[in-house]
């Protein structure tokens, strides 16, 4: 658990897994002695929001709660988008490039190489499709819901749509992107012949592990923070539209 008064350098020093989180909030290093709150303010980041996300990342059991009402869904949507950007621009290309190099430098059979490279190409396609589905459909819906909730008279058409749709539907079909990566990791450590280039092999495995953990945490943010809040807002808007 981290708190606003703590020096930011200490937070990152003791929790290096927060490193990939920093660019998503546009937080630049060179913290000096500044506290979490001071660093956030300096970068125009909502401190409560940063703390909710960071704590959810650090602690499996942490249930974001008290700070939730303090920031808008728009803030969340922006954060989710910048996480997606991190996956697309940094995390995926990084591991892909290493996998390619590892395959080229290995004594694997053609079949084994094609198994891995075809897998990764397909995985990337599915990954992109998953993100597009969220960015094209779910996130705009969330923003629209927030916009309608702020209106004195919400659009009746939207209310009608709401009676037949809930964000919980999305929760049900929210695929876990880390599953296939786990299989790939297992394939490498269990079934492929050992790699000569251990350094590169370990880097690939480390990158895969970090990406898996990040994807789990990200899905948690969506499932435990975003969806409950959106569901609450749906209920609120519906009860306003049809008072009992």
């Amino acid at each position: 658990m981290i708190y606003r008064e703590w020096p930011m350098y200490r937070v990152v020093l003791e929790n290096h897994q927060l490193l990939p989180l920093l660019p998503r909030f546009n937080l630049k290093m060179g913290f000096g002695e500044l506290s979490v709150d001071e660093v956030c303010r300096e970068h125009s980041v909502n401190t409560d929001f940063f703390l909710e996300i960071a704590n959810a990342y650090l602690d499996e059991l942490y249930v974001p709660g008290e700070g939730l009402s303090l920031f808008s869904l728009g803030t969340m949507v922006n954060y989710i988008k910048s996480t997606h950007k991190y996956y697309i621009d940094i995390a995926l290309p990084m591991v892909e490039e290493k996998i390619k190099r590892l395959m080229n430098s290995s004594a694997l059979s053609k079949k084994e190489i094609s198994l891995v490279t075809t897998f990764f190409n397909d995985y990337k396609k599915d990954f992109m499709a998953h993100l597009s589905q969220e960015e094209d459909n779910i996130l705009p819906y969330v923003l629209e819901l927030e916009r309608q909730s702020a209106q004195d008279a919400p659009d009746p058409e939207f209310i009608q749509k709401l009676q037949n749709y809930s964000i919980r539907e999305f929760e049900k079909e929210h695929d876990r992107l880390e599953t296939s990566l786990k299989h790939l990791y297992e394939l490498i450590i269990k079934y492929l012949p050992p790699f000569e280039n251990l350094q590169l092999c370990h880097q690939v495995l480390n990158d895969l592990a970090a990406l898996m953990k990040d994807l789990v945490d990200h899905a948690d943010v969506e499932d435990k923070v975003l969806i409950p809040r959106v569901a609450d807002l749906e209920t609120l808007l519906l009860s306003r539209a049809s008072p009992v």
Partner: protein
Amino acid sequence: MRISTFILHIDSYLVRLGLASTLNRIQGVRVLKEFGANDSFTTFLENHPVDYIIIDQAGFDRSVDFFISKPELLELTILLKDPSKEDLNMGLPLRDVHATLYLTDEKETIIQTIRNLLHHRDDTYKKNSSENLSPRETTIVRLISMGLTNRQIAEKLFLSAHTVMTHRKNINSKLGIKSVSALTIYAIVNNIITIEEVSSLPQA
């Protein structure tokens, strides 16, 4: 994870609200409705199957007759107890209540208690409906990994192409895997097929 539905029957508005908001933050939980001292949840239950009922001692004592007439509901019941008060309920076997929460519980305890329930329920659910593949589905995964097309699989297993498609859809949704290449790696790491047996053709 599937959604578990809850209703709350708690006299204190503040406790009810606090518990509902705590529960709703837990993944897989949905509080369907909350009932206070003057509400009756019995009619609601007739039309709405729920997974769990959280009820306080006062409410439980008032509803003893109802629970005696429907003892199966006790298996869904979580009692919210005030540790400073004695049990009042006469004659009803409290031990049949599924779980107990205490008014003095901290957030972590409440969440852990509920998670344990859901976890257990999820396990039972998995065993019954199974994320594991059926033998037929396993065979199909094997043939897909060997590079066979739907039509070839249909011919080999004496099935219609339509049936093979249905199996594939079920496999995809059970495993959350869409591509043939990911399915192949799944098959290898789960010992359904060996690397040697896998099709050497690049798979579409």
